């Protein structure tokens, strides 16, 4: 990897002693000896194991939950159902005052996705927990389910989540987070070409090699320790204290080492219930997702559907861009309403376009809730944007890289969300790539600068 110091040389400082040096990582020596302590490496005597009884249906009413046979199973220490959870219905975004509480820790009236937790079994062995789980009887009445984001928004679609009352998250701007600049219709009028395209993605899993989980241990002084790979110690702590309805000072979270996370370990879905199990039993409890759970139960990167409509002039200016984006949040919000909002702020991409209209919807369907993942709100948008850019260039017979230079944002340009561009460097990245990869472009583009004001 080469650092090309000729770019922005006057803005760089090279007089630093530690910064810019490839110091060895402090943790690698532990990694290669296998002594880095991950949460599941804590050896705690008397550890109990938690397993979930999960919904076998995508959408169903719960008629009856019978745990009596499971309770009698030897080795079972505690069965936990919704009523045992002090603050059962929560939303993680409540910590930043965002949206209604919409998700139960344990389902009680309805299940809204295949795999939703209904009953937690705490037993003295994994096997014992599995055996007891098989003895739990839950009667369901299946309900029609909806899996497609646009179907979910049609009149008459099954209502996924009653806490929202409709199958989308309601922003203060309405059904979608909106960004508007200029007048797109006027822009389309001015355009020589219009291109409207649809882009889709399927859910993607973080797939960290270490599955999500935690170990909760009752401590002295009426406190609880939780060994966790959470990406956000205090986010998880605050969240657990809300769900358990106990003051935060009773909780002591110890983490800081994750066997991969990629955004999937922000959710805090395991810590509250495991802490509760430790409180209810007075014993240390481990809840470790199986690989199946990691694949299908832990949040995914949301599937998205994105429509982009562009107005283009013959000389390569994008004069209007209209985007409708649907983020498939699954049955609950988790962090998706925030992600959809981030997407809205990201469009129309790193390009200066005078007329922009963005609508990003966070849509509820009967699938595994989605949440943050590396590139949250951006990755799929960039896929759509950059394929669209390629198509636009080809419409007018222009080189796709040169086309990007024409439209690339520069310092001082007004963005759609009304911030002036600062610190732009897209042009320089493209210049270096062009030269290095031998992708020829006209010399005028090699002379451009992100710091040069647009004419």
């Amino acid at each position, binding site marked *: *990897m080469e650092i090309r110091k000729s770019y922005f040389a006057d803005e760089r400082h090279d007089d630093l002693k530690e910064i810019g040096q490839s110091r*060895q*990582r402090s*943790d*690698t*020596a*532990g*990694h*290669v*000896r*296998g*002594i*880095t*302590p*991950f949460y*599941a*490496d804590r*050896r705690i005597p008397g550890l109990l194991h938690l397993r979930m009884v999960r919904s076998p249906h995508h959408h169903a009413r719960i008629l009856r939950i019978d745990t009596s046979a499971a309770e009698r199973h030897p080795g079972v220490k505690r069965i936990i159902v919704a009523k045992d959870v002090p603050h059962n219905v929560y939303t993680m975004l409540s910590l930043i005052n965002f949206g209604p509480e919409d998700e139960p820790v344990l389902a009680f009236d309805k299940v809204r996705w295949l795999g939703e937790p209904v009953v937690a079994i705490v037993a003295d062995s994994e096997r014992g927990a599995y055996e007891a789980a098989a003895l739990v009887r839950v009667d369901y009445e299946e309900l029609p389910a909806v899996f497609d984001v646009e179907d979910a928004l049609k009149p008459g679609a099954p209502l996924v989540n009653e806490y929202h009352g409709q199958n989308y998250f309601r922003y203060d701007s309405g059904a979608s987070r909106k960004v508007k600049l200029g007048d797109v219709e006027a822009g389309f009028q001015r355009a020589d070409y219009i291109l409207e395209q649809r882009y889709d993605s399927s859910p993607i899993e*973080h*797939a*960290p*090699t*270490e*599955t999500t989980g935690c170990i909760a241990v009752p401590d002295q002084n009426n406190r609880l320790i939780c060994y966790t790979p959470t990406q956000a110690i205090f986010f998880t702590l605050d969240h657990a204290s809300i769900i358990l309805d106990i003051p935060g000072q009773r909780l002591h979270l110890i983490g800081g080492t*994750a*066997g*991969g*996370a*990629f955004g999937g370990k922000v959710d805090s879905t395991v810590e509250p219930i495991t802490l509760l199990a430790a409180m209810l039993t007075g014993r240390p409890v481990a809840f*470790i997702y*199986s*690989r199946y759970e990691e694949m299908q139960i832990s949040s995914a990167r949301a599937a998205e559907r994105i429509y982009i409509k562009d107005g283009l002039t013959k000389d390569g200016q994008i004069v209007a861009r209209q985007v409708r984006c649907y983020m498939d949040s699954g049955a609950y919000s988790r962090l998706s309403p925030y992600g959809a909002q981030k997407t809205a702020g990201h469009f129309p991409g790193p390009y200066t376009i005078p007329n922009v209209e963005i609508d990003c919807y966070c849509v509820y369907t009967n699938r595994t809730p989605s949440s943050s993942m590396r590139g949250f709100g951006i990755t799929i948008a960039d896929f759509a944007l950059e394929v669209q850019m390629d198509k636009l260039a080809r419409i007018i017979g222009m080189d796709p890289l040169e086309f990007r230079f024409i439209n690339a944002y520069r310092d001082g340009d007004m963005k759609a969300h009304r911030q002036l561009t600062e610190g732009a460097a897209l042009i320089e990245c493209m210049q270096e790539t062009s030269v290095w990869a031998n992708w020829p472009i006209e010399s005028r583009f090699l002379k451009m600068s992100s710091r040069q004001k647009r004419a």
Partner: protein
Amino acid sequence: MKKVPVQMTVNGEERAEFVDSGTTLLKFLRDKIGDLTPKAGCLQGTCGTCTVLVDGEPRLACITLVEDCRDGTIETIAGLSADGKLHPLQQALLDHFAAQCGFCTPGMLMAAKALLDANPHPDRADVEDALSGNICRCTGYEPIIRAVLSVSSSDACRDTAERGAV
């Protein structure tokens, strides 16, 4: 609970223990021996984080029963640097910045050791095959492949090491 005796050599040490019958080698190593270096990444035999050597062959400890390892010889990375000095493979991973979260690292190292024990001069395809059962989600594999190839002394393997300079 039925306890059964098992005896084997773990990283050069004779071990005799009573275990629950049907115990996996992974559970045995982690819970009985206290060797936490093999990791439980999937318990399905699909990720390689629990890779150890049994009688010199790479095995997935999560789907191997300890009763099938009686009188066997088990090697984990806890034994690689037992004398306090890093094994050349460990040093190579360190030098190549070939670990990030570190969770796959123990299994990767044992898979690589199995390869080099059997074939001291592997080519790139050999290394790819050797690591093909080990999932890494952080590094993109390339630094690990190069680290393993760097341990081999053969010139041929150095030539094939680079699919490209990073």
